[in-house]
């Protein structure tokens, strides 16, 4: 024992020795390495600049569903501007945050790149990494976009534009997809598609008769963010003051995941599970497995985002489906808050050497890419007019877009009221609990969470604590912000919250 212990301890000591000595050794190895390194480095650079005339700009996107539309746009763009080549590499979107991290730390950001939650816009700006886009997005241009697109902290900072939307900002709300074939087998029509929870149970009984392995509803519970989203949206039919996007009660200025809306919605899923109306695989699969099983006729309904129609059509070669609004308790309306949260945007690197070419491309992006994407049935355009004038031959996609449009209601956002809230959010990002509603749903359905309300209350408490700390920290640093900036007493849920409402509050 002693010998071993001694051996290991002495090796630990040796390591600490090596550690202290390593800085010098470090430079040594680096120095010896550079000679050979630069040799091959310059060689590579030479070949790259060998054919000098044409300009290459690089674009990193993290949306595989847009790939086809982007490639098409680039091909057209290169035809129109033969001297510009747009490099559009494959991105592993699950690793995109790590990729961005690495690129930033090595100062090798591409000319144009997709945003990421891991590096919020205000941090990018503080680090001096992103280019101001005011000359691309002139006031005239900006007006073409949906109201609320140019929101502080998402697309703009101090009134200047730093990000260009990639999808319609009114994305994504949740909806019910139905398999027409399964419905027909159960002797049902599209009129029987449930609008309320009770309908769903009633219809469900009939669907269970179709076959032992066919279930009314299938969900991919493993995809926790999606679960969080539709539970939140269902909850708005019960308690609309809590916005579904982040479980925040905009009246009280507190997170409220334990509101009756959330609790009842989760309990409804549990009930479906107990009544065997929920496909038993739901608990162990993700949303893409769920939608494939749906396409294979194993379930009549699936709840998903707007982006499912193109997934079903392209990846599953399945087109016999329809789209309906999310069923809710008593069939009351639900909504998703549109707060200008343009979650999918692209930035331009401040160090780009080809800003003029980038500008050309961004303009092309707005004029052609949005339309291409729309035509392919991937997602709506951020430009209002394009959505109206573009001919799209894809009934389900249009149906989904229509439902989505109605689900989104302009709601208040603290960012618009107080710019310092952007900083608070950056702080909050690091402090808030890692847990989310979707995971708690999983735990509840799997039987590990028994006290649902308690667990949700704990989550709310964690969030509220983190928010309080973040506000404190930001206000200590000199910014004027307090908890009241998060309360909107003059807001009525389901009614658009326009700029005059903010003005009214400011008085």
């Amino acid at each position, binding site marked *: 024992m002693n010998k071993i212990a001694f*051996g*290991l301890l*002495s*090796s*630990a000591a*040796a*390591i600490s*020795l*090596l550690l202290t000595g390593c800085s010098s050794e470090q430079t040594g190895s*680096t120095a010896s*390495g*550079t000679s050979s*390194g*630069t040799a*091959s*480095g310059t060689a*590579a650079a030479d070949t790259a600049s060998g054919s000098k005339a044409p300009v290459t700009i*690089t674009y990193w996107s*993290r*949306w*595989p*569903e847009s790939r086809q539309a982007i490639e098409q746009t680039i091909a057209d763009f290169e035809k129109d501007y033969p001297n510009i080549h747009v490099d559009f*590499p*494959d991105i*592993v*979107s*699950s*690793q995109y945050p*790590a*990729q961005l*991290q*690495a*690129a930033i*730390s*090595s100062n*090798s950001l*591409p000319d144009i790149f997709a945003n990421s939650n891991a590096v919020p816009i205000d941090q990018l700006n503080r680090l001096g990494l992103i280019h101001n886009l005011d000359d691309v997005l002139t006031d005239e241009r900006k007006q073409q976009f949906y109201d609320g697109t140019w929101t502080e902290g998402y697309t703009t900072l101090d009134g200047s534009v730093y990000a260009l939307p990639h999808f319609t900002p009114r994305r994504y709300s949740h909806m019910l997809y139905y398999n027409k074939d399964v419905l027909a087998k159960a002797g049902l029509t599209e009129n029987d598609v449930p609008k309320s929870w009770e309908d769903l149970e009633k219809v469900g009984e009939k669907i269970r008769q179709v076959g032992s392995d066919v279930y009314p509803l299938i969900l991919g519970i493993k995809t926790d963010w999606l679960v969080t989203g539709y539970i939140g949206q269902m909850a708005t039919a019960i308690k609309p003051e809590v916005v579904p996007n982040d479980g925040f009660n905009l009246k009280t200025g507190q997170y409220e995941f334990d509101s009756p809306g959330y609790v009842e919605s989760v309990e409804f899923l549990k009930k479906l599970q107990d009544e065997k109306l929920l496909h038993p695989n739901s608990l162990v699969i993700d949303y*893409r*497995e769920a939608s*494939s*099983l749906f*396409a*294979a*006729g*194993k379930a009549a309904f699936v709840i998903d*985002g707007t*982006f*499912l129609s193109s*997934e079903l059509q*392209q*990846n*599953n*070669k*399945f087109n016999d489906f329809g789209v309906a609004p999310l069923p809710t308790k008593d069939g009351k309306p639900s909504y998703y808050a549109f707060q200008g949260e343009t979650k999918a945007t692209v930035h331009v690197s401040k160090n780009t050497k080809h800003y003029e070419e980038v500008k050309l491309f961004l303009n092309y992006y707005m004029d052609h890419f949005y339309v291409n994407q729309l035509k392919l049935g991937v997602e709506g355009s951020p430009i209002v007019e394009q959505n109206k004038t573009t001919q799209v031959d894809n009934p389900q996609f249009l149906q989904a877009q229509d439902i989505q449009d109605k689900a989104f209601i302009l709601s208040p956002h603290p960012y618009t009221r107080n710019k310092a809230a952007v900083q608070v959010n950056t702080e909050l990002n690091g402090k808030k609990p890692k847990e989310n509603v979707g995971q708690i749903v999983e735990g509840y359905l799997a039987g590990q969470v028994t006290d649902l309300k308690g667990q949700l209350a704990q989550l709310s408490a964690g969030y509220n604590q983190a928010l309080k700390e973040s506000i404190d920290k930001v206000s200590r640093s000199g910014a004027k912000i307090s908890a009241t900036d998060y309360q909107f007493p003059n807001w009525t849920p389901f009614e658009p919250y326009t700029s005059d409402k903010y003005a009214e509050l400011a008085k």
Partner: protein
Amino acid sequence: MRRLVARRGTNALLHLALLTFGALWVYPFVWMLFSSLKTNTEYIASGIRLLPESAQWSNFSRAWRVGHFSAYFANSAIVTAATVVIVVVLSALAGYALGRVRFPGARVLLAAFTATMFIPKGYTILPVYQLIKHLGLLNTMPGVILAESSGAHVLFILLYTAHFRSLPQELEESAEIDGSGFFRTFRQIMLPLSLPIVSTTVIMQFIWTWNSFFVPLIFTLNKPELRTLAVGMFSFTGENTVDWSGMAAGASISLIPVMVVFILFQRYFINGIAGSVKG
């Protein structure tokens, strides 16, 4: 005679058991192979049924094309081969010195190598990234190879150390009398005696590098044409979309070389490890 029959009986029983369990071992691979011929929907929904309704050979061509497997295959081969050479040479050299020469500091070195196997590590990819960047090798093939070779080869060093130490002193002495220098003795006498260990390290490093995902991804950010198969596999999963059958085809393609290498080298493999466990 009777004993022989009895033995035959036991052997038959053993074969039966081994084959039954072996089926459990092989089934997932068979499943994957067949799945690579299914449609995406079938892949998810067909359950126990192995055979596809109709073989979708297009999955393979898609994998080859979308996953850029033709290009990535070559990259994988180059990166893996180079990494294997670097790692095996470095650890053989170090192991030889540590195993055969009691130079001052040898003990400390060996202990330090060993300890890092167990040393708590935090988040270490960024420093390596910075280092490769300072060497000017980011987004180059040598950069990827270097980063891949950077993993802990401690196990290998220990294997070589133990092995070289176990070779008899007389070998070296007689070589020296014949006028062979240190390096020549190593190269012409000792190394040929180490084929099992070399095979072991080659196989293990091959498996690791071939399947390695994160390093080739991160170190080729701006040069996707330098990526490897393991990274290519991930072209099939997107933020809101997954192409399972394409992925299964890709997995099947990328499994083949590893299998070949293993089958080629496996004869030496076990002997190699045997030498080391003996210590």
